[in-house]
């Protein structure tokens, strides 16, 4: 008789009365599972239900909504005297370019910068938050921040949000232990590498890195490799475009942040090349003034009594 109850309470089935509902969701939540304990920590109540939905969707041929790809190319590498970070400058909103020259290399500490791919607000706010925490820590400990500290703070926060904060980061900097590059994924996993790329253009960029990287590069060579990797992403990935920004952080403490280190997509020359008809620009004074009269208009607060509409 439990079956009969379900058919009556499920509103969908009253319309198609002869159909038995395929799934009753309430059956799959914690209250109906025998021996359900009080959930503590993470709640996995919907795990079973989600799996059943996914399987049902697959079998019926319906497409589940897919995650939006992160349109970006970001890279980082370690060279002889420090690290070089690089990023493109396109921000997309679906298939539309939302911003042609956005800044993807974020300040974390005077000796640590972070490239961010994913949801722009998430990368911006996450890096700002960790930057603030590191400043407090620097004042408390009276010593410069370490890259591993930034990495740990970032990954712990991202894991806590279970991937819902969509921030994929390439973290780089120099500290007392040397130059470091970390890659941080939205779910909180990290990797420490001599060179890395992330974002939708990461494959194009990585192919350039794998071809050209070697240990202990000189600065000029390293910056050139980073530029070529980002350009590969800009030209071969639709989600990346416009200019290439670079940031060099050296062991001696100096930082060189270059916006538009390479700007291969300037639109101004193209716009200038368009020949506008002279009829579109009319100089002031073209129309002769025959006469002019000025009348003062007094705005009054009095209104005529509105007459009610007759219905």
């Amino acid at each position, binding site marked *: 008789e439990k079956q009969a109850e379900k058919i009556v309470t499920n509103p969908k089935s009253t319309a198609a009365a002869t159909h038995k509902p395929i799934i009753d969701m309430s059956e799959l939540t914690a209250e109906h599972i025998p021996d359900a304990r009080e959930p503590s920590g993470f709640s996995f109540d919907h795990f079973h239900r989600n799996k059943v939905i996914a399987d049902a969707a697959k079998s019926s041929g319906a497409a589940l909504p897919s995650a939006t790809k992160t349109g970006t190319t970001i890279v980082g590498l370690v060279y002889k005297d420090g690290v070089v970070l690089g990023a493109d400058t396109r921000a997309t909103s679906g298939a539309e370019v939302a911003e042609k020259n956005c800044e993807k290399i974020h300040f974390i500490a005077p000796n640590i910068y972070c490239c961010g791919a994913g949801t722009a607000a998430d990368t911006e706010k996450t890096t700002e938050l960790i930057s603030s*925490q590191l400043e407090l820590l620097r*004042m*408390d400990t009276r010593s410069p921040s370490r890259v591993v500290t930034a990495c740990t703070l970032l990954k712990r926060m991202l894991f806590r949000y279970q991937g819902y904060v969509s921030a994929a980061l390439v973290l780089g900097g120099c500290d007392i232990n040397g130059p470091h590059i970390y890659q941080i994924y939205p779910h909180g996993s990290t990797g420490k590498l001599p060179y890395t790329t992330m974002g939708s253009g990461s494959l194009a960029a990585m192919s350039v890195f794998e071809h050209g990287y070697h240990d202990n590069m000189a600065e000029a060579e390293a910056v050139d490799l980073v530029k070529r990797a980002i350009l590969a992403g800009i030209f071969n990935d639709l989600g990346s475009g416009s200019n290439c920004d670079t940031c060099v952080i050296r062991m001696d403490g100096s930082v060189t942040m270059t916006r538009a280190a390479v700007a291969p997509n300037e639109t101004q020359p193209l716009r200038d090349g368009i020949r506008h008809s002279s009829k579109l620009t009319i100089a002031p004074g073209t129309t002769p003034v025959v006469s002019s009269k000025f009348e003062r208009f007094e705005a009054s607060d009095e209104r005529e009594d509105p007459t009610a509409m007759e219905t």
Partner: protein
Amino acid sequence: MGDSAYSFSLTTFSRQGKLLQIEYALNAVANGRTSLGICTKDGVVIATDKKFSSPLVDSEHVHKVEAVTPSTGFVYSGVGPDYRVLVRNARKSSQAYLRHYGELQPVSQLVKSTASVMQRYTQSGGVRPFGISLLVAGVDGDGTPRLYQVDPSGAYFGWKATAIGKNYINAKNFLEKRYQDDMELEDAIHTALLTLREGFEGEMNAKNIEVGVVRNGKFSSLTPSQIQDYLDEAN
């Protein structure tokens, strides 16, 4: 705080209309080691006496002058542990301001928020007022250097030059005689050191005082070698 046994404030009015706990807190400040500050048009200097009762104390790792934001610093007279609580609180609240407005908190805002914390402890259940007066050096929203004093009651005052702690009356008289409106920061640092030496018990050197300076909108604590240079110039 409501259902604790101490839901009433410990700071209550006397018949004469005084808050005795605050007066006693001010006494605790007046027993503390001297601190002073001078504000000029191109910067602020704050300094404090860091002499300890025993030469065995490792004074290098005790810090009385503390940075709160990259452009403001605190120094105090009174009960040290109370000071550290306020410094931590001020640092956290100015970071929250930075995250919210995208700008460093101007010193006047920081002073107001710190003062309101100190006032809260004079009107809450089961707590006592802070046993310190603060000297705050920083720059305001328009870049003007400023010096503020915050008292245990939560009252705050802007000063051209002031002193707190032991011997503050003599120090203030000394400062009043020497202060000039068109003083420059370097003169102010020398004057601050001279004033500190006036009331100093025993020999003053770079290890038993601390100096903080706001210069070009940035706060920094002078290193012992920098202090020694100034002391050498004064001799």
